[in-house]
């Protein structure tokens, strides 16, 4: 009998954090406004009351300080889970993440591990002001020494946050903020699959559609519409952006011959750029069409009244699917 509960993505992460805090007394959860308030998205709601000020606490509004002290705490044997309040607020910590957190294992030739998790609500679609809707995952996915995860559903969210905390490598954990309240079943007994493996969410034969995080729901919607029109789309949820599971993508492309990659981030030098390049290098003879990318434009994330035109939707994905099929 499996133990299945219905949770939102946000509350699945809360449950995952609660489990990690319970299982390992070295786990600490901190960030701006995460204690009594439970974070601006309430992801840490209740944890301060449950585990106390020594385990779950507010940090000053200083992102470099949050990540820099997380590094020091990890050196002392703790497993810090730090929240950066919004995607666009991560850049004051960029130095500590890319120059220190990512490199300390290497600098010490393995004498030190860096079991630090940085949680980041990311992506747009919530009608927010500037700096609250960005997709900075590409910066971190290309940084050697970091692992990057992004769940798209409650079950993955519950398990992947625990796997991130259990890792002895630093993990950037990108949470799809506009999907925080999307509900789904969570199996509390067993993880769905290995952490860094992509998953085929919907099987198909005509075109492969690879995506992650907040765009997964959009991709599934596009596949549904396409099916009504007689096009069979295989949808892959990447789940991990460093490493990327190219094997699963290649296996699918061998079947479909066509690949579309979608995300909210601008396409220029992005996750989709890398996937496009790698699939062209490694599966060239299986391709019937060029790999096509669907993403944000190469502009700063626009103001709320324009974001609908910036973010890829099911129609924009299907336009690319049609182009791939027309080759």
């Amino acid at each position, binding site marked *: 009998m499996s133990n299945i509960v219905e949770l939102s993505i946000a509350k699945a992460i809360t449950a995952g954090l609660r489990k990690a805090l319970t299982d390992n007394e070295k786990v600490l959860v901190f960030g701006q406004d995460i204690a009594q308030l439970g974070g601006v998205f309430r992801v840490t709601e209740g944890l301060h009351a449950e585990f106390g000020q020594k385990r779950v606490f507010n940090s*000053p509004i200083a992102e*470099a300080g949050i990540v820099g002290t997380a590094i020091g705490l990890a050196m002392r044997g703790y497993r810090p889970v730090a929240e950066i309040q919004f995607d666009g607020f991560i850049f004051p910590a960029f130095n*500590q993440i890319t120059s220190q957190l990512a490199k300390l294992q290497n600098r010490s030739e393995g004498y030190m591990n860096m079991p630090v998790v940085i949680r980041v609500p990311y992506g747009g679609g919530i009608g927010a002001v500037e700096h609250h809707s960005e997709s900075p995952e590409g910066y971190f996915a290309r940084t050697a*020494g970091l692992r990057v995860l992004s769940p798209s559903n409650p079950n993955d969210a519950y398990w992947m946050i625990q796997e991130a905390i259990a890792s002895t490598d630093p993990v950037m954990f990108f949470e799809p903020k506009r999907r925080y309240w999307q509900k789904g079943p969570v199996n509390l007994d067993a993880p769905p699959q290995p952490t860094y493996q992509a998953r085929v969410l919907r099987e198909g034969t005509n075109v492969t559609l690879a995506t992650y995080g907040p765009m997964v729901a959009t991709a599934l919607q596009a596949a549904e519409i396409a099916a009504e029109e007689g096009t069979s789309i295989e949808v892959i949820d990447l789940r991990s952006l460093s490493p990327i599971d190219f094997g699963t993508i290649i296996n699918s492309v061998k079947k479909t011959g066509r690949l579309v990659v979608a995300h909210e981030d601008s396409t220029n030098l992005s996750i989709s750029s890398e996937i496009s390049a790698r699939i062209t290098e490694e599966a060239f003879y299986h391709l019937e069409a060029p790999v096509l990318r669907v993403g944000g434009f190469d502009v700063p994330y626009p103001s709320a009244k324009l974001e609908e035109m910036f973010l890829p939707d099911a129609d924009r994905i299907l336009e690319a699917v049609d182009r791939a099929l027309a080759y």
Partner: protein
Amino acid sequence: MVQFLNPEGEFGVPKGLEAYGKYLDALTEADYLKFYRDMARMRRFDLEANALQRQGQLGLWIPAIGQEAAQIGSGYGVRGNDHIFPSYREHGVAITHGIELMSILKMLRGVNHGGWNPEETRFHLYAIVLGTQTLHATGYAMGVAFDGKVGTGNKDEDLAVITYVGDGATAEGEVSESFLFAANNKSPLVYFCQNNQWAISSPTASQTTVPLFKRGAGFGVPGVRIDGNDVLASYAVTAKHMDDAREGSGPFFIEALTYRIGAHTSSDDPTKYRDQAEVDHWVARDPLKRFEKFLRRQGVGEDFFTEVEAAGEALATEIRDATFALTEPPIENMFNHVYSEPHPRIDEQFEWLKRYEASFGEGN
């Protein structure tokens, strides 16, 4: 400014500084001789490393000549289980904590990026991006307090953390953030700032309009300025504030006023931005000479100085030979510690490089 030895090597505990002075009462002649030996060792190491760089044996050298009193004194003020988070010029502090000097030369030759064991040595890796280490030290000190290793009264259990910064690094925002986190958490942390008066070509006046020892006050980190060329001041003030930190009094900032007699690094040319007269002024206040004058006043004889001189020559020969004997790092060192768990991108690239190298065949 806290000073116990004047430039003539005359000793005295000024009124009001008795709390520091009592740390000197406990020192024996053997301690004095140890301080001098290590200051001389640091100087000789520096001169030899500089020569090795000039001969192309090191990619870079980072001289610390003139800062021997600040580093050896403060290094010996750190005790027991304490942890040290250096910047990148703390070769003398390394000497006081048994770091193999060849580890430093290996790094500056380009064999690795550090590679000593920070947990075992308690001397953490050099931090080249200025000020970043102050936050690591703060986090570590927060963890020490979380572990309950502060203010228990058990000297074998309690520990404090010391972090080294230069005058230039104090301008970095991360140093200010560390003051805030350390003060908010009442962390057992001492900042030891070597104000050597030059950040490459920028004088301290370009980093601050307020004396550096006052920088932390607004964050809740009190400070004191000491004569950084007085090894006894450096020792006593560090020892006292590390004790206070261990006992739970929170973070403290020590500004050691000293002078960078050499260049910023072997790539620098200080003649472009400072007068020789200024350098001469500080060479006349050489911390090693000052301590030698003190020891001679104490009756230490010529034999000791001759012995130290000979030990310096032996050290020079030893590190020269060891540098020549350094081998190239194996290529797997580039890939092995990027992650602690397997990562396909790294593994695939390493495999590719091995195949590529092998494709040239044996002996080609």
